[in-house]
């Protein structure tokens, strides 16, 4: 991290508070959350993108689907003038959070800050949708039908 002449040290972080501390939601529910941007000092943020998406995590190709996306460019609603914000979105019926072995499905909220110049900062906060049990290995291989 470096210091820009005459400015505070830039160590951005975004604190996100979901309306449900467990961060677990059912499909088609509405998620509401607030966020607070800190550590940006006097640096001018030129744009904030806030989004909600699911993505796959595993050892191969990755996939994702965006459920909510919003871009804020109005300086009155950007740091350093305004450091907090809130948004809400309705979850789709699927996919649900899944802890698989080969692939996992995660849901997250992303808040991305674009600073003047070429800097940007992405903050990602995972939450759960549904309550699918994690994948478990078979204790014994299935026997072939006689």
């Amino acid at each position, binding site marked *: *991290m*470096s210091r*820009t002449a005459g400015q505070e040290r*830039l*160590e*951005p*972080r*975004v604190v*996100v508070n979901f309306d449900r501390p467990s*961060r677990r939601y059912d499909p088609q529910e509405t998620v509401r959350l607030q966020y607070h941007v800190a550590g940006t000092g006097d640096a001018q943020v030129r744009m904030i993108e806030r989004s909600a998406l699911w*993505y796959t*995590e*595993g*050892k*191969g*190709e*990755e996939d994702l689907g965006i459920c909510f996306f919003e871009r804020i460019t109005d300086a009155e609603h950007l740091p350093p003038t305004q450091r907090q914000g809130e948004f809400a979105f309705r979850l789709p019926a699927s996919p649900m*959070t899944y*802890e698989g*072995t080969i692939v*996992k499905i*995660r849901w*997250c909220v992303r808040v991305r800050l674009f600073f003047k*110049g*070429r*800097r*940007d*900062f*992405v*903050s*990602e*906060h*995972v*939450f*759960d949708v549904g309550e699918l049990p*994690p*994948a*478990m*290995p078979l*204790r014994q291989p299935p026997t072939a039908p006689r």
Partner: protein
Amino acid sequence: MRDDATGRESVPGGEVNPFATKYTRLGAVEPLEEDGRTFDPAAVLARLESAGGCGVFVGPHGSGKSTRLEACARAAEDTPRAGLSRAVRRVRLRRRWDLWGTLRAVLGMPAGGLVCVDSLEQAGRVGTFCLTRLARLRGVELLATCHTPCGLPVMAMCHTSLELLKRVVEQLPPHAGLVSQQDLADAFSAANGNIRDALFELYDRAETARSRQRS
């Protein structure tokens, strides 16, 4: 965060497998030399310029060629020339026909730009010759990866070692209790020194360990 850099923070949920693509994909891991030292892309770009603007990383699968190429592409983007940001284009050759797209990319680049070509061996001898001639005529720099020397100045011969795998794994999220030092050695051996395949193997071992913990 550097003044021109991208920063990231992640508040995870669920159980993290530190060897998932999310953490090991191109650009997510800092490129390292075979002995574990940090790779210096600026030094390569300087060597590329003094070598006439064309160069290649040579090495087998999973030896870090593409990781180094990406690091050089980012370094070039972040280093303006004569006060102007530098045009950089990344191309991956999957088959010989992709060469036409690469030639068009070189044609479309302004002088002083950099074209990064992954898997140059797909272009063949004639294709490589045409590509380098066109790049030199256009004043465009060409940096590529190739499995074997192809006549272009070699920027680095890429090799792997168990030490390198350990240093790569140190950059990933914590894996205590999921894989042991012996697992790293076994995965490296099973993958015949291919770091990418060794990380895939470690993903499976971590999942197996986690399943055991759950049950």
